[in-house]
């Protein structure tokens, strides 16, 4: 079922090993804790046809104004690669993941092997057997890049399986920012997107990584993200889940270095007929690390969200400071929102806490705005957008605006 690829032997082995595990596994069921609230039994995932890929390499395009670089895919096919020549000269590498396999065998073999080994459900294992295309970015040590990179995945094709994988590596002290966009080209196409993401930060590196998922209303989106962040490094991750019929994502954020910091910020807006199941894991392996997960969602009538957050602190991780917050805004009566923020703490020298609130728009605030002459719809928009806005404060402006615009559109549609 796998298309022929010219790949190095280690990658063929990795795929074969994953395929073997895949064959021996069954799909997750609602008796598996992480899948208890998301039933995939009727999905018929194997009926989706793997996306066409191309070995042609990415056509060079001029880098976009205000961007450090850009890599686009039209379905599984490369659709343009542009990198600021000044950055290229300083050693920045931006290329398709397939093209990076030989040159970056050592880090990629380590990262992907570890990810494949850690994959604990059939979708995640499937991804490693079947990943089809993707992006690779390396920012060398000491380099600070202000403008963001853009990874643009424009999915297409009815009944297509797309399995993109992204690897971002920052060298010591490097700083960069990435916007990662997943869109559906035709609203009614039914695409199964089973994505993977690896973020590796060397010591004292800082990365801002903003994912926005805007697939069409028939599509299914699975994503498994992993991070390894080194000593004194900083990750700001933004995650906007706005599209797809079914969303099942996980970010497993391993704080491997002393003094490292991770901020996981997420927004989700769930419309009628959408089901979103989002998991964050803050895994404190080493001492004196800080992590914050802050996810805010809104659920309209007929929508269903599940947020499952976990803070896990290893025995040796003293001085851990971790916080997990989930807030849910319920916008309609037939909406359902589950919140499961959990803690597993194995060290006593910690400050760990979590909070969760679920409620609806305040009548008083709506009344106040309406008394100032705003319509009901405008008041709602102002309150909902305001609710999400502060979470996206540190995200790149274009991403922030784009995300809020989609939320406004959704609200207008619902009014």
């Amino acid at each position, binding site marked *: 079922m796998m298309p022929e690829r010219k790949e190095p032997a280690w990658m063929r082995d990795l795929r074969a090993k994953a395929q073997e595990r895949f064959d021996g596994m069954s799909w997750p069921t609602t008796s598996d804790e992480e899948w208890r609230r998301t039933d995939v039994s009727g999905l018929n995932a194997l009926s989706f046809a793997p996306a066409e890929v191309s070995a042609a390499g990415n056509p060079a395009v001029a880098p976009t104004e205000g961007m450090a670089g850009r890599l686009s895919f039209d379905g599984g096919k490369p659709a343009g690669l542009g990198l600021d020549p000044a950055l290229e000269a300083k050693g920045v590498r931006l290329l398709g993941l397939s093209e990076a396999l030989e040159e970056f065998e050592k880090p990629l073999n380590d990262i992907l092997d570890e990810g494949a080994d850690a994959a604990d459900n059939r979708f995640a294992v499937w991804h490693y057997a079947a990943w089809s295309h993707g992006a690779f970015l390396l920012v060398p040590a000491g380099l600070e890049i202000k403008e963001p990179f853009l990874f643009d995945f424009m999915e297409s094709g009815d009944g297509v399986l797309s399995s993109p994988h992204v690897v971002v590596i920052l060298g010591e002290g490097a700083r960069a920012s990435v916007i990662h966009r997943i869109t559906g080209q035709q609203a009614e196409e039914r695409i199964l997107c089973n994505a993977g993401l690896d973020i590796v930060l060397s010591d004292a590196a800082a990365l801002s990584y903003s994912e926005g998922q805007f697939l069409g209303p028939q599509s299914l989106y699975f994503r498994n993200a992993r991070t390894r962040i080194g000593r004194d490094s900083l990750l700001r991750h933004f995650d906007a889940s706005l599209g797809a019929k079914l969303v099942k994502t996980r970010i497993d954020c391993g704080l491997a270095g002393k003094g490292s910091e991770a901020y996981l910020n997420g927004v989700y807006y769930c419309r009628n007929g959408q089901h979103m199941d989002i998991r964050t894991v803050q895994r404190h392996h080493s001492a004196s690390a800080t992590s914050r997960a802050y996810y805010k969602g809104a659920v309209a009538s007929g929508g269903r969200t599940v947020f499952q957050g976990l803070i896990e602190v290893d025995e040796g991780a003293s001085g851990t400071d971790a916080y997990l917050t989930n807030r849910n805004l319920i916008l309609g009566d037939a909406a359902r929102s589950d919140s499961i923020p959990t803690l597993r703490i194995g060290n006593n020298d910690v400050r760990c806490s979590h*909070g969760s609130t679920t409620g609806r728009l305040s009548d008083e605030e709506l009344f106040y705005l309406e008394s100032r002459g705003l319509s009901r719809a405008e008041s709602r928009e102002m309150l909902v957008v305001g609710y999400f806005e502060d979470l996206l404060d540190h995200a790149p402006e274009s991403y922030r605006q784009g995300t809020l615009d989609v939320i406004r559109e959704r609200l207008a549609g619902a009014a």
Partner: protein
Amino acid sequence: MKSQAPSTVDIGEYQHGFSFPDESVFKTRKGLDEEVVNAISSHKGEPDWMRQFRLRSLRAFQKKAMPNWGADLSDINFDDLYYYAKPTDDQKKSWDDVPAYIKETFERIGIPEAERKFLAGVGAQYDSEMVYHSIKEDLAQKGVIFTDPESAVRDHPDLVKQYFGTVIPYLDNKFAALNSAVWSGGSFVYVPKGVKVDVPLQAYFRINARSFGQFERTLIIADEGSFVHYIEGCTAPIYATESLHSAVVEIIALPGSRVRYTTIQNWSNDVYNLVTKRAMAYKDATVEWVDGNIGSKRTMKYPSIYLMGEGAHGEVLSIAFAGKGQEQDTGGKAVHAASHTSSLITAKSISKAGGVASYRGLLKVNEGLHDVRSRVVCDALILDDQSRSNTYPYMEINSDNVSIEHEARVSKISEEQLFYLQSRGMSEAEASTMIVNGFLDPLVKQLPMEYAVELNRLIELEMAGTVG
């Protein structure tokens, strides 16, 4: 009112590590099958409907899988346990008639003193049967029934048939099915309409026989507008082989009533304590669970409240102390099935010397409700670097007009507080104990005095030898 109870207890011996030779007059063989269930039922002289209920439950128990979450239960061997033992021939009416060896055990825990002072009735359970039962006459005259469930099956079959197994059906979970098959002893409480029982009803449960599963069954029915506070304390002597305790407690709080149920669980550290406790709170009714878990090897217990009618309110206060080799998997559940309902779950846990304390809870709001408020607060203190604390709150919200809040914090004893107390001349151990007591204080205040005293003493014992 001052309790004299503490004076009967020698603190040095207060480890419940004493036991007496097993003098049971009737005991089933080890293991569980239809024959054993029939033997229990025949021995109790039960009507056929209860025997059939037990047999149905046994089949459910055999079919149901062990829970695949929570504490590790893999080393329970159901074939190596006794399911029924009867210690004396008859239930005694007066304290003087209770055999000396049983009395001595209770004396050590301090029951008679407490009873003499201000308890309304004492149902003391020694192994399976209630050996002693009394209730003050004025309550009996008001129509309050406080007895063991066997007597209730015999004397009040209509009430039992109407409510028994309705809050926790035998199919609910494996351990509820087990209890339904082999239940023995426990309490049956009925409070008639409008009657307020202003002194707590109290029952002590003890396990004495080795490898003995204790399966008490408690059913409390508070009729409209009534009030009752029921207290249960649990203590078991220390044995090398593991014992299983699996109780089922059902509470029905009819419209306008209020029920408070207090437990201090101090089973010895070889007991598996797997308990299902659930209450139904109807219109304008209030149910409060105060649940302290200090003992046992592994406890899984999540007192639940189903808020069935408008105006119902539920509270769970949960305290857990997980010491060496212990796993306390405890918490609370509130299920909102009606509008204008509220719930509050407060949990405090302490883990020490490698102990694992887990909060596990559920907050559920059914579809189409409005004006539902709930708050869940968990606080955990980890006393050393070998111990663990977990928090698993589940929140399932299906209605929009709700206000749900949850917070949890995990921390250690603050070095500033320790330093301050030590600078005032306290040893580190004394200072730690004081801080732990302060941490639990808001919950301890909810207990009747003699239980607060007992709990404080238990915490002091658990804290002995703690540093930092």
